[in-house]
């Protein structure tokens, strides 16, 4: 097999030096009746060209090159080509977790830069080196809030991504953590009166998302006021990271849980992505996930290492802040490079393009159908309600090689024939005009 760097002659020599007759002797510890006889029923070995061909065919079956108006937690942004050039370097790509800092300063410094940039963008004081994604970061932030406050409930806005809430529900069930849901108003924002009633002395935190699932920007300050007045923490989830270029960061939050996929990570049918948790310095010891810190070596030279590791599973085991071990380091590196390419001015311009495209689209849709949740600012997503079922509209658009907005009946049946539309810097005016035309 071409990945195996041995000849049969070398195998023989090695077996002899070990002192066994055949490789089967080394598998003797496995009881004979447990050993597989013959070959497994798997596809026979493919040549490399056949592998490429197989996946090329699968790719063709996935409508490559279609224009897409889907967002909802996974965003089509342009990926600068330097990202793949750099992350493909074997020393980043094939390295392990930087437990031996003398041989991993490249990974460690890159993570330190990532942590710094996330702080700058989110307005928080510390950020970790990544969680699996935004959806799993959600229960991690809630469990963190429970540890900090010693309380056991969470109040969660319905305008948080439905699948984030589903994942939270799965975790919360076994943590003895009741979840109370709070609805949204006609302007798409969290119902603050309902929130006021829902937050009690047992609430560890309030969880909102901004921009929320509908693309609407929440009144973070108002939510913070209610939460803090009752001794609870405010968790703000962010699933469209590009919004941070133009939307004020949630500085009033105690914990920010983020999805970094928008920062140069392929949409890739849902993963791998990269979550992040960022928070105030005073909560750092309750934060899950790896952290890289600055220090120096014995000669005073600046260097970086994993730190505060006693929070983690390999030391604290069942009392750890989380069971997470492997994170999303390479994906976080993509995000770091993306943030570096765009930088201070570019992040702002990129966000402005997104804002402008969506504003134009919403305006045009508004002439033909009802655009919901007016009355509050939004970023690059909006909800359109039509007389016709959005699925039928999308069928027609597929003929034009366009993927329309996400029908929302599955998640929010009360919104009827509504669909969530996303425009990014990749969306062209011509395509926007084409889809608006289909909305009769």
């Amino acid at each position, binding site marked *: 097999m071409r990945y195996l760097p041995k000849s049969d002659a070398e195998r023989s020599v090695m077996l002899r030096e070990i002192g066994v007759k055949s490789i089967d002797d080394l598998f003797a510890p496995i009881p004979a009746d447990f050993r597989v006889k013959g070959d497994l029923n798997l596809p026979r070995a493919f040549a490399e060209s056949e592998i490429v061909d197989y996946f090329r065919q699968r790719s063709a079956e996935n409508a490559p090159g279609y224009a897409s108006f889907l967002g909802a937690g996974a965003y089509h942004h342009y990926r600068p080509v330097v990202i793949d050039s750099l992350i493909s370097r074997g020393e980043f790509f094939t390295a392990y977790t930087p437990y031996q800092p003398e041989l991993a300063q490249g990974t460690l410094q890159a993570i330190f830069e990532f942590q710094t940039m996330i702080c700058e963008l989110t307005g928080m004081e510390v950020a970790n080196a990544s969680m699996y994604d935004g959806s799993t970061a959600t229960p991690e932030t809630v469990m963190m809030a429970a540890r900090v406050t010693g309380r056991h409930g969470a109040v969660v806005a319905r305008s948080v991504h439905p699948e984030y809430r589903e994942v939270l529900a799965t975790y919360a069930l076994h943590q003895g953590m009741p979840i109370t849901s709070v609805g949204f108003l006609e302007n798409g924002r969290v119902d603050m009166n309902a929130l006021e009633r829902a937050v009690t002395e047992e609430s560890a935190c309030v969880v909102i998302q901004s921009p929320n699932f509908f693309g609407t920007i929440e009144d973070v300050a108002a939510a913070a006021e209610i939460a803090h007045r009752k001794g609870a923490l405010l968790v703000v989830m962010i699933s469209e990271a590009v919004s941070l270029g133009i939307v004020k960061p949630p500085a009033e939050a105690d914990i920010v849980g983020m999805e970094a996929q928008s920062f140069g990570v392929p949409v890739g049918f849902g993963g791998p992505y990269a979550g992040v948790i960022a928070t105030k310095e005073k909560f750092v*010891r309750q934060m899950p996930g790896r952290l890289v810190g600055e220090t120096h070596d014995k000669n005073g030279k600046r260097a970086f290492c994993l730190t505060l*590791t*006693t929070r983690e599973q390999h*030391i*604290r085991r069942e*009392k750890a802040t989380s069971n997470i071990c492997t994170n999303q380091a390479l994906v976080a590196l993509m995000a770091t490079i993306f943030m570096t390419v765009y930088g201070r001015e570019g992040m702002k311009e990129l966000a402005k393009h997104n804002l402008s495209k969506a504003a134009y689209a919403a305006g045009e849709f508004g002439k033909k159908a009802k655009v919901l949740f007016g009355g509050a600012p939004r970023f690059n997503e909006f909800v359109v309600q039509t007389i016709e079922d959005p699925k039928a509209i999308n069928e027609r658009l597929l003929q034009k090689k366009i993927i329309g907005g996400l029908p929302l009946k599955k998640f929010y049946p009360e919104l009827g024939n509504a669909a969530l539309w996303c425009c990014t810097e990749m969306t062209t005016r011509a395509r926007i005009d084409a889809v608006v035309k289909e909305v009769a």
Partner: protein
Amino acid sequence: MNYPSSLKYTKDDEWLKIEGDTGVVGITDYAQNALGDIVFVELPKVGAEITAGKPFGTVESVKAVSELFAPANGTVTAINEELAKSPEKVNQDPYGAWMVKIKLKDAGEAGKLMSSADYEKYASERG
């Protein structure tokens, strides 16, 4: 290793100084040596009840966490705020770097802990 005779000791390597019905608690020279460089001490809040033999906090080195076990029953009346900024004081001066002060439930019970001679023997057996 140093084990002042004015103090009482536990098998969990804590020392207790009894002053009337107040107890002052810290960890022994043996403990700080075994832990290595201490980076963080986690203490309970003032007013917390602690139970003899049960954990009431933790002390961390870079690669390990150890629980602090209460030497006696009582209520926490003070915690040493200095340790938050300078946990290394526990290594430098384990008997001066107290961790908590407690109002003892039963000073008589507390008096039944190990003497410094007994503790020294216990510590040397463990190497």
